[in-house]
């Protein structure tokens, strides 16, 4: 009866004529990627015993292999970060009770520096795979994971919380189960933000790569084959040429996964943008265009989607609103009270433990000293963010007002944000030693070296969205010079500047561990501060003092976020609405 004319089907059958030229072009690319990744994965499992020296060659011939291992490691970590984020967001958004613990917990985890996780995790991971390098590999992947996962989880959770109410109502009217709702509504809605955060996470992963791959915790000295270890060895050997090679390899790596992975994903995810209008900054990807024009690939993805959409039928709700099962269960207020009390007790217990720990194991004098170091680092972070803002805000506004440059600058800034600060060590050591400068002052710029770019690209993005009418109006009124900045540009970019500065501040704290303790061959430069304290204690393997240092840093970061950045953020939000 329903033999309907379906224009889609007819179009498909016309095109259905076996492989076309896009198929032939894609085939070698896909095969090569598969072989390379299989090879890299096989190399991960290797006999190893603790104390064995691992050889890292500075010969550039090995670089492609190291690059492969590093990228494989980063993507594995990214995969786990994604799984973690999905689980975290789904649980935190669904269960209010879990949310109460999970969200503050993530806040804390976010402010723990990567070295902290590594110090705790390395021993269990090695014990997990005795006699095999896989344990160390896991520890490295875990360390990278800790530099990637938190912002992704936060982004996903935030998006799920802000799902448009009318879509949420529609899923309820059409009786989608929580499972279906997650895949059909929540995840797609969160997709653009999640992808953007995945890209940021990859940059974050590079930044701490040296620490993650060249593990030197508690007297252990293990170097996994990878770019990070290569850089570490080059620094020990004072080999400037090798540093240059490492930079080249890193650039290649970033370009490769950007073009082969993130661009196509971003272009594909364009359909998940919630604003229904077409935006002018649509992402383009040659690879996605290729894939979309290839029949084989299309056939494959169509099959895949059909396969993937089958689980959507799972967990259907079998009853409807006329069944008493659908009634909203009233949560007994007594239970939520009990829950609150339990949480409070747990917090009190933790506080008690902390006080006894400080009292008996490290002493109050040491704690005071560490807090003092924290204040020094705080001063450094704030001063440098201010300095970086003075430099970059005018430049960023200038660029943002010229759309022809802003896209390229964004890409470059993203690369620079990924740039491990260790690569700057030779230059800095050379300058400080030969000019006899004070490390306390001149090592500081390293802290914002990687993070200032967040200010740059957020402000560029903000400035590029200043409405054209506003600029025309200000020209028309004859606003010039400082007045124009004060009345038009600065207020317009304020919200995006704050977003950038928050990211930069958080990153700088983390970076202080690398930036306050600089080595080049046998030369070691140390600036007083919390970062160098943690780094030194990690090398000695004094777990009590590592814990103290990390704890103090967490508290500093959280207080700063809560009482300074958050206030500014709310102010910015209020003004711009």
């Amino acid at each position, binding site marked *: 009866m329903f033999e309907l004319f379906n224009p889609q089907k007819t179009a498909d059958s016309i095109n259905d004529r076996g492989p076309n030229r896009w198929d032939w072009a894609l085939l070698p690319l896909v095969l090569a990627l598969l072989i390379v990744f299989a090879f890299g994965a096989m190399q991960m499992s290797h006999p190893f015993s603790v104390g064995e020296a691992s050889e890292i060659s500075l010969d550039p011939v090995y670089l492609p292999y190291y690059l492969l291992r590093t990228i494989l490691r980063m993507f594995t970590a990214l995969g786990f970060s994604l799984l973690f984020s999905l689980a975290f967001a789904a649980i935190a958004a669904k269960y209010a009770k879990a949310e109460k613990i999970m969200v503050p917990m993530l806040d804390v985890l976010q402010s723990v520096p990567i070295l902290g996780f590594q110090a705790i995790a390395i021993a269990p991971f090695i014990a997990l795979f005795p006699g095999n390098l896989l344990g160390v590999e896991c520890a490295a992947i875990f360390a990278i994971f800790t530099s990637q996962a938190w912002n992704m989880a936060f982004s996903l959770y935030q998006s799920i919380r802000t799902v448009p109410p*009318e*879509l949420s109502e529609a899923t309820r009217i059409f009786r989608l189960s929580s499972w279906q709702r997650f895949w059909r509504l929540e995840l797609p809605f969160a997709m653009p933000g999640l992808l953007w955060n995945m890209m940021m996470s990859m940059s974050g992963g590079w930044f701490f790569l040296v620490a993650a791959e060249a593990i030197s915790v508690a007297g252990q000295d293990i170097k996994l084959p990878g770019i990070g270890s290569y850089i570490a060895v080059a620094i020990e050997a004072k080999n400037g040429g090798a540093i240059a090679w490492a930079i080249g390899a890193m650039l290649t790596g970033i370009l490769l996964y950007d073009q082969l992975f993130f661009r196509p994903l971003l272009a594909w995810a364009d*359909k998940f943008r919630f604003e229904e209008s077409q935006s002018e900054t649509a992402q383009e990807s040659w690879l996605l265009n290729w894939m979309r024009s290839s029949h084989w690939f299309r056939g494959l993805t169509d099959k895949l989607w059909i396969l993937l959409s089958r689980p959507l039928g799972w967990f259907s709700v079998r009853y409807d609103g006329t069944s008493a099962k659908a009634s909203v269960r009233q949560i007994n207020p007594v239970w939520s009270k009990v829950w609150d009390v339990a949480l409070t007790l747990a917090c009190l217990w933790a506080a008690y433990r902390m006080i006894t720990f400080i009292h008996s194991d490290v002493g109050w004098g040491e704690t005071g000293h560490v807090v003092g170091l924290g204040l020094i680092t705080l001063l450094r972070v704030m001063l440098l963010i201010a300095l970086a803002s003075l430099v970059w805000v005018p430049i960023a506004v200038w660029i943002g007002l010229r759309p022809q440059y802003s896209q390229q600058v964004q890409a470059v800034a993203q690369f620079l944000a990924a740039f491990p600060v260790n690569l700057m060590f030779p230059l800095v050591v050379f300058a400080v030693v030969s000019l006899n400068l004070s490390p306390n002052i001149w090592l500081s710029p390293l802290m914002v070296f990687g993070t200032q770019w967040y200010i740059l690209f957020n402000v560029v993005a903000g400035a590029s969205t200043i409405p054209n009418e506003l600029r025309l109006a200000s020209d028309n009124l004859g606003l010039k010079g400082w007045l124009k900045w004060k009345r038009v540009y600065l207020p317009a970019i304020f919200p995006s500047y704050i977003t950038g500065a928050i990211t930069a501040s958080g990153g700088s704290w983390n970076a202080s561990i690398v930036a306050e303790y600089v080595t080049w061959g046998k030369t070691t430069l140390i600036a007083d501060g919390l970062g160098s304290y943690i780094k030194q204690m990690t090398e000695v393997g004094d777990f009590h003092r590592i814990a103290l240092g990390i704890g103090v840093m967490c508290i500093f970061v959280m207080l700063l976020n809560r009482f300074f950045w958050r206030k500014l953020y709310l102010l910015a939000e209020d003004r711009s609405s």
Partner: protein
Amino acid sequence: MTKNLLIDLKGVAKSFRAADGTARSVLEKVDFELKEGEIVALLGKSGSGKSTLLRIIAGLIPADTGKVAYRESPIYGPVAGVAMVFQSFALFPWLTVQQNVELGLEAQGVPADEREARADAVLEMIGLAGFGGALPRELSGGMKQRVGIARALVTNPDVLLMDEAFSALDVLTGETLRNDMLELWDENRIPTKGILIVSHNIEEAVMMSDRIIMLSSDPGCIRCEVKIDLPRPRNVDSAEVRALIDEVYGLMTMRPVQEVAAGVPVPKRQDYRLPETDVSRIEAVLDLLADAPFNGRADLPQLAEEAELSDEELFPTYEALGQLGFALVEKGDISLTPLGKRYVEAEQIDRQELFGQQLLTHVPLVAHIRRSLEQEANGMLPEGPFLELLEEFLEADEAKRVLGVAVEWGRYGEVYEYDYHTGRLTLPEPAESA
């Protein structure tokens, strides 16, 4: 007779809990029935709880008390036989038209082949054949709402709820879609047994429904009901339809029975509520009313047509004009008062002064703010306490809106000033020596 009762509400009440823990009533003692074979329209001003009522019927929110039943069984959540069409379409932008329409079937685990066949059939019926592969963002508003309707119809619902389904569309598109919908209904081409329309458009309600139910505000309860026995399709220019529209206009603008106060000047808290309009619209309507062709007196539907504004936009303005004593609304007509005439003819500066005077004498909230400020030594108060006062009987968003209106009016009438950044209200500075 209860056999063909689709939706049955008895004594339904709903209140929301305010921030300070006190309950605020949104709906009170609502009895409502939707029988097989009828289209019912719910009319009411914003804040009358019509949207809440619709959501209770849809099973999206539970009623506090009273009976809510679908075909004799109580409703605890969204019911399979009830589908809804949304004002903002609520389409999933990342799903194609086809996938959007199949969504409800997919959720129920209907096999892919059957889903496709049913979606194709509905899309063809609603005039979207060939659009299955399109993304919603490629479609115009009218087409989007067609998808919204198709998505609801494909589940073969008994009851179709339409939440201001045509109000986001332009007039012509809305009319076309409305007529298409009625055609499907009158020719029995859809399995739907009853339709409930929530609307603020009087003409739409008169053209579509068999019964119009009017809700009053604060708290929402059913005020009156108008039966319409005219056959469809109805001609908007016919005398009967025009008369009906006028009648409904009259009923809608009728003030709730005025308690002739026995000289007690203490205002009731509900009087603090202000209509959702602004000074420039108030003045625009006044000017329009004063000029030819109306010359001070107008039929409401005609004024709406001339103003090119919807009823939802105009009603609050009429209310404001009435409250300020500039115009009188009676039986579907609006006329200027002598004061209104004076206002229209006055210079800008006098207008603002007159506005201020009327505010102080006729708008309790503004007068209350002014008095409170005068009692302060420095003539300054934060907005917080006023907001809290309003939140005692209004929802938080609504309280904020009302205070916003009071701020705008007060500023215009030079009754007080307001600083956005500090959220402080102050008495205006005495005019500097001119």
